[in-house]
Every structure is written in structure tokens, then in C-alpha cells.
């Protein structure tokens, strides 16, 4: 017989005589976190604010230290001051406590060094020994690659050569060695495989955590709870009831100062391969037998492998790129992509990408999954919309149903902002006669759970410290998603598009609308 929750709580409490799983946060082993690229944007905007917030919520282990590394010469004090300023500036939805900072800052250390120079790793090794002594980090080390992607392979190789990786003898006792890699995991399938070869030589797969911050978002995790925690939705979750699925990730901003980087990347690589296919897999995967890292990731990987790979001849019908042109929005003149800083005037970069995918399995055969993502769209929004089929026979056939046609039922999982879930259905309009009107039943995270939602990086940092890789991607998943976008990249790369093809502030090119129109569908306006 399964243990009841109180019995489970008591049994877990036996591991540490003082444990109280109902009241205490998940216990984390002591650890030293080494951040490569500690002077960069990601560290300052996301990682340190997330770590500080975890300290604020007392979720960091008592034995904890950070060793930041970058090329810039800084003392520990200067590094702390820099992080102080960035945490204060970028802390999301949270108060800043000066007293707490004083204690937190004592755990921050810094080593300057060239990532290609073995001496840098010797210095890191010495610093690790020191923080292990001073902060009782228990010999556990977490490496975080927050550098430019071109440094990933050299850093991993140098860690191996310096005896700092799991496959080396551990100079600090019996701690773990884990590696967190930020996306992109390669620039295409081949470079992804090449990077993985380097990783696998030095770190075993179970110690590698490939971060996709979208999967760390509470609302993406809630897809699991919604689908597999309730009995009423999953029976409708297949080709018999679902007409099609739309996944939208829109940004209202342009490329800003990242023009040079973005010109080489584009929306297909940056968003669809990097994030949205993972979200699609979460929406469409089969339930795993248990909610454990590899069980969940196996199902997600299976789904990614079931996505039909487009033939080159089908690409232009089923995948539409776009690039924003100049426009005037709210009285402000907005530059087109080609006018942005460090962007070449003839750039063929896709600032918008949309595609129609099909999943070749029994559950989803014939159901289109439409995915779109773009910059300079009317607003920032990420959502999944599941359009259900019409009723098999309408007894209200004489009644007008407005723009919803005969398919009034739609489930919308809002990832950001206004996180929540809406279900649209028809209701009788008050008054005489049977007039129907679509209404929406809303669940809003903010109103049902007033508590602050942790940022994706807070969630993912706690998970990696706990050794939980459920929300991290695995190499087979990365390769499967590169396989899916490969033909699109090939065809788009060999086609000269007439860019720009959408105005900044619009919902993308007309061809993206036509793509859905061919299936009798239309993009919803979020």
C-alpha cells in the first residue's frame, strides 16, 4: 500500500533527524558554484539576482560559495560591488535586503583569467580548495558556462585537463561535479554533435545540465500538473478532440544592441529550435509512468523524434520566415531590422519564424501544430492555444457564432505575462431566445496563488543543486530538435527572401496567415 502523505513526511524525516519536509524548503547539499563569464549580461541580469533571491528565501545551502571568472581583472571586493549593483537593478518582483546582502556577499569570490590558459584553472582549483575550507562546501562543485558559446568546448577540455571534472580524481574528497551549459547547444546539428563529443569526454551525461530557461517557467511546469494531475483533460488530449494547436512566443522589442549576434542566429534557431519545440513536446508528450527526470525526458524526447521532418520541397509551404521593417508605433519611429546597429543592410535574418509541424504518432496523427515567434510584434506574450473540434452536431445551427465559427472551444495556457489558463466555451446570452455567446473561464496564477512566482533561473538553479534534471534538456532531445529544423534552415539558407516582409508592430508576414489558411485555420490574436 502506498504511504499516505504524513507517513511519507515522517519517512523522509528519518534521513536527517531534523528534517521537516512539510515546512522546510527542499534540502540542498553544500556546493561551490563556478561561473565562467561572471562579468557578462546573463550573470548580472539573471544568475546573481536568482542566487540572491534564493538566499533571501533561505533556499541556498549553508555551505555555499560562488567563484566568478572572466578575463577582466577584479578583486573579490570589486566583483562583489559589481554584483551588488546588478542584483539591486535586476532583482525581479522582490525586495532588496542590505543586511542579507552583507552575508551573501561574503560568499562571492572572483578569479580573473584567460579561459584558454591552463593557469586560470590552476587558480580556480586553488580558490576551490580555499572556499571548501572557508565555506564548508563539502567538495561539491557546479560549473556554469555563461560565456560565449565558442568557449564551451575549450573550458570543458581545460576542466578535464586540470583534474577538475568528474572523470578526474577529486582533490576535495567525494563531492559531485556538475556542468550547466546555456543554449545554444551548437549552431546546427553537426556543431551540436561536435560540442557533445567534447562534453562526453569529460563529463558523464548524468552530470550535464543543458539549460532551457523556458522549461523552468512555472507555467510551463504547470502544463504537467494540468495534464497529468487532472482526470478530465487528458481524455480530450488527442486527434479525436483537438483540431489544432498554436504556440506563440511574441516579443514587442527589437534586437536592440544584439544585432550582430542576432543576425547570425534568427528566430528559428533562437526560439523555435531552442525553446518552442521543447514546449510543444511538453504539451504533446505521453504521460510518463513516474515524475522522475529520465522518465519525463524520455517521453519528451520520444515526442520530438515523432515530429515529421519536412521534405525540402515542403518547406516553403509549411515554414514562413519574416523580417521586420520600419514603422511608426505610438508616435515613435521604429527602425527596421536592417537599420539596427551592427546589422548588414542586406541581412536575410529571420526575425520572425513560423512553421506547421505534424506529429506522426497515434495520438496526434493529422493534427497541425503551428508555431510562431518573432520580434517587434504587437506585444510580449507566450501562450499555447489548443483548439478543440466543433460539436458533432449543432442543435443551434441557426444561431450566429461570430468569428469563432463552429469551433468555440479553445483552451489557452498562458505562459507569460498574466500567467494562467482560460477555457472558452459558448453560453446562452441572457434574455429570450437561444442566442449563444462565447465566454471565458479564467484561472489566473496571480489571483489564485498570491505568492511570488520564482523566476525560471531560481527554479533551475535549485534543481541542478538538487541533482534534478527533469526540466533540463538532454542531448538526444537537442539533436532531435535540430533534426526538425534542419531542412527549414537549409531551404531558408538557400533562398533569397524579399525582406522586410512585415511592419514592426504587426503580427508578422501575410504568408504566415496564408500558411494556416491552407488548412482552414487562422492565427488567434493573443
Amino acid at each position, binding site marked *: 500500500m502506498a504511504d499516505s502523505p504524513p507517513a511519507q513526511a515522517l519517512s523522509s524525516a528519518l534521513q536527517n*533527524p531534523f528534517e521537516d519536509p512539510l515546512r522546510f524548503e527542499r534540502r540542498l547539499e553544500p556546493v561551490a558554484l563556478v561561473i565562467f563569464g561572471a562579468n557578462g549580461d546573463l550573470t548580472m541580469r539573471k544568475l546573481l539576482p536568482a542566487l540572491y533571491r534564493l538566499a533571501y528565501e533561505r533556499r541556498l545551502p549553508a555551505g555555499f560559495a560562488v567563484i566568478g571568472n572572466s578575463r577582466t581583472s577584479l578583486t573579490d571586493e570589486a566583483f562583489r560591488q559589481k554584483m551588488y549593483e546588478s542584483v539591486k537593478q535586476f532583482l525581479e518582483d522582490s525586495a532588496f535586503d542590505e543586511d542579507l546582502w552583507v552575508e551573501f556577499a561574503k560568499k562571492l569570490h572572483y578569479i580573473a583569467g584567460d579561459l584558454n590558459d591552463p593557469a586560470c584553472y590552476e587558480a580556480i582549483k586553488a580558490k576551490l580548495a580555499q572556499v571548501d575550507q572557508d565555506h*564548508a562546501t563539502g567538495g561539491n562543485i557546479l560549473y556554469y558556462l555563461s560565456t560565449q558559446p565558442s568557449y564551451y568546448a575549450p573550458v570543458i577540455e581545460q576542466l578535464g585537463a586540470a583534474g577538475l571534472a568528474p572523470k578526474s580524481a577529486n582533490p576535495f574528497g567525494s563531492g559531485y561535479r556538475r556542468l550547466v551549459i546555456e543554449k545554444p547547444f551548437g549552431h546546427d546539428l553537426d556543431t551540436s554533435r561536435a560540442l557533445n563529443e567534447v562534453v562526453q569526454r569529460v563529463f558523464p551525461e548524468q552530470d550535464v545540465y543543458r539549460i532551457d530557461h523556458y522549461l523552468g517557467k512555472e507555467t510551463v511546469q504547470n502544463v504537467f500538473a494540468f495534464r497529468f494531475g487532472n482526470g478530465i483533460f487528458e481524455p480530450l488530449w488527442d486527434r479525436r478532440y483537438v483540431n489544432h494547436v498554436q504556440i506563440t512566443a511574441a516579443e514587442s522589442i527589437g534586437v536592440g544592441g544584439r544585432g550582430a549576434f542576432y543576425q547570425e542566429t534568427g528566430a528559428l534557431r533562437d526560439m523555435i529550435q531552442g525553446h518552442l519545440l521543447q514546449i510543444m513536446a511538453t504539451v504533446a508528450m505521453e504521460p510518463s509512468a513516474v515524475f522522475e527526470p529520465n522518465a519525463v525526458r524520455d517521453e519528451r524526447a520520444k515526442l520530438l523524434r515523432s515530429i515529421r521532418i519536412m521534405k525540402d520541397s515542403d518547406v516553403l509551404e509549411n515554414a514562413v520566415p519574416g523580417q521586420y521593417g520600419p514603422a511608426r508605433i505610438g508616435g515613435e519611429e521604429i527602425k527596421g531590422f536592417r537599420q539596427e546597429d551592427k546589422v548588414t543592410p542586406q541581412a536575410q535574418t529571420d526575425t520572425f519564424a513560423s512553421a506547421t509541424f505534424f506529429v506522426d504518432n497515434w495520438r496526434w496523427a493529422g493534427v497541425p501544430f503551428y508555431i510562431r515567434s518573432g520580434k517587434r510584434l504587437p506585444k510580449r506574450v507566450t501562450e499555447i492555444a489548443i483548439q478543440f473540434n466543433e460539436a458533432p452536431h449543432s442543435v443551434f445551427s441557426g444561431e450566429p457564432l461570430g468569428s469563432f465559427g463552429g469551433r468555440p472551444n479553445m483552451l489557452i495556457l498562458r505562459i507569460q505575462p498574466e500567467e494562467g489558463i482560460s477555457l472558452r466555451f459558448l453560453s446562452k446570452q441572457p434574455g429570450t431566445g437561444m442566442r449563444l455567446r462565447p465566454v471565458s473561464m479564467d484561472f489566473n496564477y*496571480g489571483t489564485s496563488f498570491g505568492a511570488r512566482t520564482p523566476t525560471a533561473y531560481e527554479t533551475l538553479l535549485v534543481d541542478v543543486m538538487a541533482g534534478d534534471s527533469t526540466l533540463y534538456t538532454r542531448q538526444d532531445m537537442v539533436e532531435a530538435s535540430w533534426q526538425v529544423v534542419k531542412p527549414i534552415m537549409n531551404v531558408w539558407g538557400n533562398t533569397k527572401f524579399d525582406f522586410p516582409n512585415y511592419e514592426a508592430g504587426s503580427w508578422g508576414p501575410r504568408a504566415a496567415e496564408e500558411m494556416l489558411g491552407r488548412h482552414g485555420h487562422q492565427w488567434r490574436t493573443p
Partner: protein
Amino acid sequence: MATLQAEKLLRDLANVWEELGKQGVEDKSGGVLRACAMNLLVCVEGDVEVGETLADLVHEFPSRVIILRVKKTSKPTLEGRAIAQCWMPFGRRQQICAEQIELMASPDTLADTPSVIRGLWASELPVVIWFRHAGLLRYPEFATLLPMAHKVIVDSRDSEDPEETIARLQAMQKAGHGVGDLAWARITRWRESVAQMFDHPACAAGGRNIQSITVTHTSLSTPTTSRYLAEWVAASLGTPVTIEYKALSRPRAWEIHSLELRGEGFLATITRKDANQVEIRWDSYTSALIFPKLTTSTLLLEEFEVLDRDPIFEKVLARL
């Protein structure tokens, strides 16, 4: 004869929502979002204000709040009104509102309130009763409401007679009711610090043979919080605990001063340094921790997070 009907209060509540909806149409703000995740009955004595605490609570845990104010009056009184607590979340255009029903009863009409309150619960949602004044537990009229509650919360530390409050909690627990004590929530950070210390393998190894444990406090009478901490440590390790009074050179606002665990060649201490900071020491290791400022609302929120039975608390409560 004072009378009050649940239906009338619910109608008043419906009117409140209708008015708010109309205002939303008039000012084109999109109306308000009605939020309710729980029923919370708050029992208070006299004119004591709980508005600020409830405002904090409903922001974090939107609830249908029923305030029952028990107040001595010259003639029998039983009256009620319905209002909405609204707030505008940062960056949103739509107000969020939680509903609040205020009842006032004199001791001689108290027996009539349970039937009204039963008609006011929002259906399908958990029920929590918070006795702001633990002395109200003496009224037998509440006995019929207790079985409907997922949890009954008191604060033994602030009660006039902590011994009696603990005894009532123990009796309710024995009767099968879910109970909570804000005094227990007050020591969560202390307990978590002890657990965190013992996560470290070296400390866990050193602490295997603890021979003596001492909790010190700064109040002349032993506070419930110290007793809870001592019994929890004793129950966890199976070692008796000594509770001692610690005279400080100047008065301090806190109660628990330190926890000391001593074994052969091993000493671990957690010592309060100031209102927010504690120092943890074992072997040559020292670190400082910041304890968050506790308010009634943060303590209640912790109790709301544990609506199921809490076996560790129940075990410690039974030992007091």
C-alpha cells in the same frame, strides 16, 4: 431579539460584486477579478483590529474572510455586513477583490452564529479558523464549527494562559481536528537552521553522539516557543533537553537566545546575535544567517501552506 440570515449577507455580497462590475464598465477598467481560494473564519474579541493582517493575507491567499467579532454589549447584538477587499496588482489594469463578511455578536447571541456561518462558506474550498484570541476557545458555541475546519489556528505565545491554550490544542488534536499554533511557526527558521547544519556530513557525523542539549531563552517565564524547540530537538534525537533562562545585559525583543548541542569532541551552537541575525558554529566553521522579520500574517501564511495534518508538529505538541 437580534437575528441575522446568511442568505441576506450573501445577497449583500452579490450586490457588492454587481456594483463593482458596474463601476468597471463605467470607468472602462475591465471590472474586477473575484478571487477566492479558501474560507477563513477569524474570531476576535472586542474592538481589536485585524484589518492590516487580513489585507496582507488576502493578497497572498485570496479567501472569503468571515470576521466574527465577539463583543460585550448592553443588549443582545447579532449583526453583519459584506464588503470587498480590492487591490490593484502592480502592472495590471484590473483590480483583484476578495470578499469579506463581518459579523458582530455579543456573548449571549454567540450560540446563533454557527448556523449563520455554516451558510456563508464558499463551497468546495478549505475552511480555516483562526482564533485571534485563544481565550475564545472557552466558548462551547464554537464546538459545532470545529469539525468543519481543515485547520484551527491559535497563538499560544500571545494567549493569556499558554498552558490552557496548549491543553485545548492537545484536546482538539486528540479529537481528530487539524490544529496549528503560530508559536510553532515562529521557530521554523530555528528548526531549519538546525536541519541545515546537520545536512553537512561532517556535522552529521560529529552529532551522532549528542550527550547534552540546552535551549536558552530571555524571558523570565519559559515561552512556548522555547518549549516547542526543546521538545522537537529531544524528539528528533532522543536526548533530553535542558531549558535555561539567560539574563542579558539589556532587554531583547526575542525569546529564544541559543541552542547548544554537545557531544564528545563536538559542539554545535546557534546563537541569536541581534533581532534578525543568528550565528551558527560547529568545529571551526562559523556562518551567519539572517532570519526574516516575522509578522502575524507571515506566520499565518506558513500555516495555510500546511493544511493537511502536520505529523511533526502533532508529535511535539503531544509531548508538551
